[in-house]
């Protein structure tokens, strides 16, 4: 990858590269923009969880083309942003990179591994060095990010050069967990979400990282809307924030799972979005946001096969 | 112990329409009298419950015995609400906040040059009237005041009928941005007018106005031989607490609400340019 990036920089085809670099901890991976001077510090491995697509929006103001490396799941966000004209394809050179699922260091910690100093991949094994001795995780699949447990598959949906191989990270039913929520009684479900959402500290990380939340000015930041807020003014407000956000990205959310990855309180926010995706699939037929550029999503489209509004609210309203 | 974040109630006893977008509000405590004593250049937090609270410079001189005045330009949410008020309306007020212009120390005995643009006259108005009330403490006083048009000049009646009285020994130099029917005074931007007038650089300068005007006024003063430690201004940043804690008006190691809003330009040179 570094080699290819250097070639493209040298040829002048691009003047900068959007990828990942190592952070302060050996296992930290931070999105970064490189030029020919520092492209050698580019890193790509099993720890590169962050989705880079949204950073392209900010890069569009600058001169020249930018090279971006896209994991299979990031390629959906890329297409969706291109569909919404938030990125200009003339100014980007995408290269697809292989992915076998990304490691969630928080899940290593949840296994009781404390004081992590480094994480090294050895095939399916992970070697973890810590302040308190070394640990081995036999199968990396045990500690993948939540988003990798609902992998959209190893296919890249952007047609471009590919470096490296990908593999599917899960065979499970990605909507299984949503079905579990649906099976709860309304009271149980209410209690579940109240419990989770009450932890919200309103840091806005979920919104700011979300490639579908690409509004230039969010309604919750705009003092003129009357709903702008920094904190919960009452004990239900943070619930509303997340529900409204989920509604707003419905149909455009590619299920990249960044919202849950970044949440400091580990709120499974992606489940709200995935519920919408599941419903859209059931009501309007299968749809994957970002599968190709220029798609119209079912909520902004109409075709004669759409079920009648009166049928939509009937649970499981199948396409007639 | 008084609680610094808790305001007192005040009542707006008079509202004067100065320009199409500036009104001056007279505020007294309920039952009459000043809400608190202040010094020239200090500010206060005014609020309409349910709309918000914001910092405004006190326009009236401390020498006014029974009330405070605030000249406020309509530009945001709270100010729009204030402009809709009628006399008799109660508001909340807390203050005074910030350090005043050093009228009784560094500025005492000096020749003074006031330079204001638009609503920037509001904080200087307080100082000018204070100096007129204690005229013997100061040397020659000049005021350069400019606005977009003649209709946008603040307190023009007071300027012409009070300040310009011969016994005040105060020269007012008015200018407007573009020529206008019914205006036979100077036309042009404030910084250029300052250069044209060519002041002696032995004065202390108090300047207040839009950032772009201040920037060019500084260049003009530099051209006339003024040093930065002779020039004072007031900064305006977002404020919430007024007591140097909420962090909004922090620039460098200073808090504008507590260490300002009055700064000398040589002091500002040592701070990040985030104002």
């Amino acid at each position, binding site marked *: 990858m570094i080699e290819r990036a250097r070639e493209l920089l040298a040829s002048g085809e691009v003047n900068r590269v959007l990828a990942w670099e190592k*952070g302060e*901890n050996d296992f930290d991976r931070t999105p970064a923009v490189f030029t020919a001077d520092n492209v050698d510090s580019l890193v790509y491995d099993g720890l590169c969880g962050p989705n880079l697509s949204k950073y392209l929006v900010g890069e569009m103001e600058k001169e020249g083309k930018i090279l971006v490396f896209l994991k299979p799941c990031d390629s959906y966000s890329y297409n969706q942003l291109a569909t919404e004209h938030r990125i200009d394809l003339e100014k980007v050179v995408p290269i697809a990179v292989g992915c076998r699922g990304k490691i969630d260091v928080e899940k290593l910690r949840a296994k009781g591994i404390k004081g992590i*100093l480094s994480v090294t991949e050895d095939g399916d094994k992970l070697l973890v060095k810590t302040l308190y001795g070394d640990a081995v995780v036999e199968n990396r699949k045990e500690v993948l990010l939540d988003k990798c447990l609902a992998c959209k598959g190893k296919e890249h949906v952007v047609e471009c050069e590919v470096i490296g191989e990908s593999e599917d990270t899960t065979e499970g039913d990605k909507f299984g967990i949503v079905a579990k929520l649906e099976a709860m009684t309304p009271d149980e479900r209410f209690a579940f979400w109240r419990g989770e959402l009450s932890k919200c500290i309103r840091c806005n990380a979920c919104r700011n990282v979300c490639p579908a939340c690409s509004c230039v000015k969010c309604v919750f930041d705009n003092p003129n809307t009357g709903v702008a807020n920094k904190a919960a003014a009452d004990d239900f407000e943070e619930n509303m924030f997340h529900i409204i956000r989920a509604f707003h990205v419905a149909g455009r959310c590619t299920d990249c799972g960044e919202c849950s990855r970044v949440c400091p309180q580990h709120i499974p926010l992606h489940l709200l979005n995935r519920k919408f995706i599941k419903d859209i699939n059931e009501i309007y037929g299968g749809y994957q946001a970002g599968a190709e550029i220029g798609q119209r999503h079912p909520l902004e489209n109409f075709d004669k096969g759409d079920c009648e509004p009166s049928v939509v609210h009937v649970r499981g309203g199948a396409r007639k | 112990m008084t609680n610094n974040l808790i305001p007192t109630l005040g009542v707006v006893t008079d509202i004067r329409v100065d320009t199409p977008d500036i009104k001056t509000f007279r505020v007294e405590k309920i039952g009459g009298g000043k809400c608190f004593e202040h010094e020239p250049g200090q500010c206060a937090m005014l609020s309409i419950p*349910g709309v918000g609270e914001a910092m405004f410079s006190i326009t009236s001189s401390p020498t006014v015995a029974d009330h405070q005045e605030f000249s406020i330009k309509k530009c945001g949410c709270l100010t729009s609400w204030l402009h809709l008020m009628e006399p008799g309306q109660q508001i909340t007020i807390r203050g005074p906040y910030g350090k005043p212009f050093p009228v009784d120390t560094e500025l005492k005995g000096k020749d003074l040059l006031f330079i204001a643009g638009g609503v920037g006259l509001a904080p200087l108005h307080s100082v000018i009237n204070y100096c007129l009330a204690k005229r013997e403490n100061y040397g020659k006083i000049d005021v350069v005041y400019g606005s977009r048009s003649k209709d946008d000049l603040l307190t023009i009646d007071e300027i012409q009928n009070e300040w310009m009285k011969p016994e005040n020994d105060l020269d007012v130099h008015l200018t407007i941005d573009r020529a206008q029917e019914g205006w036979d005074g100077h036309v042009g931007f404030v910084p250029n007018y300052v250069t044209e007038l060519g002041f002696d650089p032995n004065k202390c300068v108090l300047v207040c106005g839009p950032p772009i005007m201040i920037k060019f006024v500084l260049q003009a003063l530099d051209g006339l031989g003024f040093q930065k430690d002779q020039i004072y201004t007031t900064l305006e940043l977002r404020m919430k607490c007024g007591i140097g804690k909420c962090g909004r008006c922090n620039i460098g190691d200073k808090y504008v609400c507590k260490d300002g809003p009055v700064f000398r330009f040589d002091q500002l040179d040592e701070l990040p340019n985030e104002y």
Partner: protein
Amino acid sequence: MKKISLNALGALFAKIASTMKLYAPIEKAGQVDFYEWNESEKVRLDVLKTVKSAKDVFFPQVEDLLKFRVEGKSIEMNEAPKCEDDFVVFGVRGCDARSFELLDRVFLVDPRDEFYAARRAHGIIVTLACGAPEESCFCTNFGIDPANPGGDASAWIVGEELYIEPHTERGAALIADLEDADASSVEAAKKEISAIAERLPFANLDLTGFDGEHLMEKFDDPAWERLSKACLGCGTCTFVCPTCQCYDIRDFDTGHGVTRYRCWDSCMYSDFTLMAAENSRHTQLQRFRQRFMHKLVYFPSNNDGLYSCVGCGRCVAKCPQNLNIVKVIKALGGKKA
């Protein structure tokens, strides 16, 4: 020195809670934060770091300041009540305990914040030594000893026992009924903690040049561009930080009146400095720089060289994109220019 079996802690908590409010690290929906204790709550003294720091207890994320009723042209105003009763916060780590002293330097200096002052006067702090510091910890850079965390009383977990040493009368009163204990096993535990603290990866940060004397040099450092590049502009670092103290004051129309409340704010947010006419910090670089400059340069410049960081490492562990104060210190520290 007193001791109590970890199994018997519930009884101690119940006894304390019978006379005053008790806050402790409590697990809710899988995450641990300081909440008010009751018998049904699950206390997690084994968790090193709560997600949010303990500052909530003295400076809550949201608190009411006053209530208004507006009728016609008149306003009726009622100040919110201040804390009047003693309460205990149990299980505060050394870093968070130090953070209260730093918050004091903001809220207790004249003009004092009365809401904070009231809580501070009534709060009894029982600290807990850090049995197993994590890789993100760097408190020792700021003279904090994770083995001796201070407060009104300090506690150490050794095996299945909790040892508690009171430092003040109020601390002693809480644990007066517990059995006396020999301090030797605590001494051994302290040595172990100190040994780990020395081996921490961020144990020896070079803070040279972070002072008021080099304010503009640090401000103008070209490294800010690179450091802030990936910043999402979220408030995670601010809200998990024990020393961040910026706040907003807002009015909320309840339909029956107006409540004026204050809530934590973040200098990382785009509207932090937004005024009707303009915004003095309009790029994320400026906002990112403000946060770290404040902690490492502006605060020490006004507070005898004390940094507004306690090395708790929450920002290190929680930043979604792995930006943090350690990265800033390493990039900008160790030089005066």
